[in-house]
């Protein structure tokens, strides 16, 4: 049981306890080092029969199927599925744009903290290893996945200390992570994805190529979609770019067109890359978002 001396602002025990009923499952076979809840590509000692294999000298005689020998006069070894644990790599975008909040809603970074903390907690609870990488124009901070509950506390510390600043270089960072994360892992990216979808596609492809299971929480503030401004406005770039002066009445149409085009392209990239992509508006309850995510994964799990 993890006990924090100070309550973390992004942890809500009630929410976590409600979510604990649904397991966090990988959609792909994971390679863990201990037994766990997730399917493994290897044969192991679970109760679930997998296949027969010819006996070779050295095999444990206890696993010979004597009934099969009796029927066919040949030695067969009975194999069972292996269950293993998973490595959950949380990728948190801490670029300047994540600091955006409007109309009293949670900022995107706060929302992302809650999602990461919830997933980390749930994974840790089922014995999975949890690690985190904060990324902006590079990997700002990283913590490799570990199984120990004490490690989760370090993860929460990093979440707490994460400060959104600087521009986004998400595609490059994802390429780097794809190379550095050892073995198969569940990579959960929480970001506003303000980069060209076409560029992201190659990063996702890279992660998939490395057999990682990729899930993306695409965070957007409703104001960023609706663009409901009345007065002429000077927009200052939160990632340190210049400013743009625009009359919303004049530009809203084209803004909406650009947003639509972007969202369509992102959806297409997600489908083509085969990643678990979900758009999240920050006015939604994060509990629902997480529940939907977990349930969705449970339904599609079990593939090896």
């Amino acid at each position, binding site marked *: 049981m993890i006990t924090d001396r100070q309550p973390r602002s992004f942890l809500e025990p009630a929410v976590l306890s409600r979510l604990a009923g649904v397991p966090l499952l990988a*959609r792909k076979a994971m390679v863990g080092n201990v037994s766990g809840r997730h399917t493994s590509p290897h044969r192991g000692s679970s109760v679930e029969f997998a296949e027969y294999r010819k006996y070779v000298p050295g095999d444990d005689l206890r696993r010979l199927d004597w009934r099969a020998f009796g029927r066919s006069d040949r030695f067969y070894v009975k194999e069972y599925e292996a269950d293993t644990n998973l490595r959950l790599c949380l990728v948190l975008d801490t670029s*300047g*744009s*994540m600091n*955006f909040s409007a109309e009293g809603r949670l900022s995107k970074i706060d929302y992302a903290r809650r999602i990461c903390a919830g997933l980390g907690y749930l994974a840790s609870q089922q014995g999975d290893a949890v690690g985190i990488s904060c990324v902006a124009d590079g990997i700002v901070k990283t913590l490799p996945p570990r199984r120990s509950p004490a490690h989760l506390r370090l993860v929460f510390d990093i979440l707490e200390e994460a400060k959104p600043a600087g521009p986004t270089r998400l595609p490059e960072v994802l390429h780097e992570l794809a190379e550095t994360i050892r073995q198969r892992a569940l990579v959960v990216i929480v970001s*506003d994805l*303000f*980069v060209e979808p076409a560029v992201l596609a190659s990063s996702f492809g890279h992660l998939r190529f490395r057999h990682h299971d990729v*899930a993306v929480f695409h965070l957007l*503030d*409703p104001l*960023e*979609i*609706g*663009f409901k*401004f009345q*007065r*002429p*406005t*000077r*927009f*200052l*770039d*939160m*990632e340190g*770019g210049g*400013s*743009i*002066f*625009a*009359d919303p009445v*004049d*530009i809203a*149409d*084209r*803004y*909406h*067109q*650009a*947003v*639509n*085009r*972007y*969202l369509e392209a992102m*959806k297409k990239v*997600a*489908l*083509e890359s*085969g*990643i*678990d*992509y*979900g*758009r999240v*508006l920050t006015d939604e309850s994060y509990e629902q*978002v997480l529940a*939907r*995510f977990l349930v*969705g994964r449970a339904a*599609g799990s079990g593939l090896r």
Partner: protein
Amino acid sequence: MTFLQPLMLAALPLVSLPIIIHLINQRRFQTVQWAAMMFLLSARAMSRGYSRLRNWLIMAMRMLAVAAVIFAIGRPLSRGWLALAGGARPDTAIVVLDRSPSMQQRSAAAADTKLDTGRRQLVESLATLGASRCVLVTDPAVKPLELASPAALADLPAAGPAAVPADLPLLLQAAYDYVKENAAGATEVWICSDQRSNDWAPENGAWGGIRDAFTKLPQQVRFQLLSFREPAEGNMAVRVTDTKLEKRGDIRALVVTVAATRQEDGERVVLPVTFEIGGVSSTVQLELTGREAVLKNHVIPLDRAAGSRGWGKVSIPADANIADNEFYFVFDEPVARKTVVVAEDPAARRWLALLAEIPPEKDQRSAAEAVAPEAFVTTALDETALVLWQGQFPAGRDAEALTAFLARGGQVVFFPPDVPTETTFAGLTWRSWANHPQPVKPVSWRTDQDLLSNTLAGGALPVGEVQVFRSCAFAGDHVPLASLPEAAPLLARVADTAGGVYVCTTTPNGRDSALASEGVVLYAIVQRAIDRGVAVLGKSRQVDAGPAAEVLTAKGIEWSRLAGPADVLSTEIGRHAGVFAADDRLVAVNRPAEEDAGRIAADDRIDGLFRDLSYTRLTGTAGSTDSLVQEIWRAFLIAMVLALIVEGLLCLPKSAGAERSPFEGLRPVEAAA
């Protein structure tokens, strides 16, 4: 376009209010920290296309709405959509009304005449314009009439139809005099006319003076010509050109020559011409194929009991213009055609007397008295129709006697003396003789009117055949009737004198010209001059309405009306057609012959008369019920409402579906794998 409240137009800069508000709004910007810059950048990179156009349209509609409100408050007036002359409410409105017979033309569709329509439109316009003073000018001889209100124009007898042609130059001169004398403020002169050449006389030299005078006036004078120039379709006019009393056995008969004219060629028609004499009417069918048909010497037997003097009326059925469908005439025993020949040169005297003595008709009596200039003073001129004078211009008592003779309508033809002196008569002075080494012949002469006009049959007099060996120049205002080469006159009429004063620049003497040997021309001159003189001598007279009819207004004679419109004021007598009697005298008043000609002055000629002046020509139609001037603020309010509706439609947000589209698919999507 004119405005009743032009000061309100000072608010027109308010039209820029939407732009100013827009600029202020632009300056009231807010600054926000923004994450999704990539969408803004790509939105800016997109073409603005329709959005930009829409913004411009919205701005234009707002400005239009403000402008429409300001114009509506300015109370705009429409004066026909084409007349966009600016100006405000006039101080004085002068109405110059052409009430000549041609203005009584009706259109085929309506019962109103041009004059009625013009008067009604003027009343409406003036009431709308609200001029503080309204003045009517219809007759140069009458002082301009100040009207209590424009409505008085509708039923004022002085603005009603008349038989007098309108002399527009004189009327405008009267208008000018009024403006000058009364120091009127901003003046608007409304001219209502049908642009007849004989009324406007565009070639009249007085126009230049009138134009200059108006240009020099310190106050603003605007001219509005309400023109009813549509031609009278199928209109016919009837006129009696000659009446003679003849005795055929013991029956007296009236021989009448009637001419029916129309203004354009048309189909052959048979016109019933009705004669009415002494309450007895008779009708004759007259066939009209071209423009004119003449019923020559129609004989109407007279009642035995009736006296030798009488009057009658000839009429044709009503048509587009009823004012020229009737003609009054009077008849009487022919008076003796007496001529006094005064000549220095015995040869000339003999020739002139001979030509004057030969009557043109067999039953006429002609007499000529030839006297030397010295004996002229003893000659009685009472019953003389013509004086033929060859010699120095009369002076002293001779001149007085001759002036009196002219004043009562007598005719004089002057021929040059052998030795010209400086004596002056009626502004005329003989200069010197010019010998022509080669005989010269007249190169041009007036065939349309006066002594040398074409014969009734239409043929020209052989004026061009007359050889002139020498001619004597003279000084004085004149209108040439026949001209020798180099514009030297052969025969001229002296302008602006009572009666008729003619000057012939050569004599019938064979050494001066072939006038006597080629006697036809001189005979025609003499006999036509006698005709003119005789016309005023008899007890019965045929006069044109207008100045010629002033015999009716002479003091001491009480005229009674025998025929003609009954509702004519005594002051208007002589301006309407009719027959009048006093003692044993009879006078028939009719419209002048030019009224029947129907020539219309071209628009550009008329416009040219007003060049350099503020002038607008409005075209009216007889019987039209439209107003010339009307307030059109409603149109501007409607324009404002329309502009606001269009602006509202343009400002409407996109449809709800389009609004929702950015949120579409914002729920998590199933992963492909």
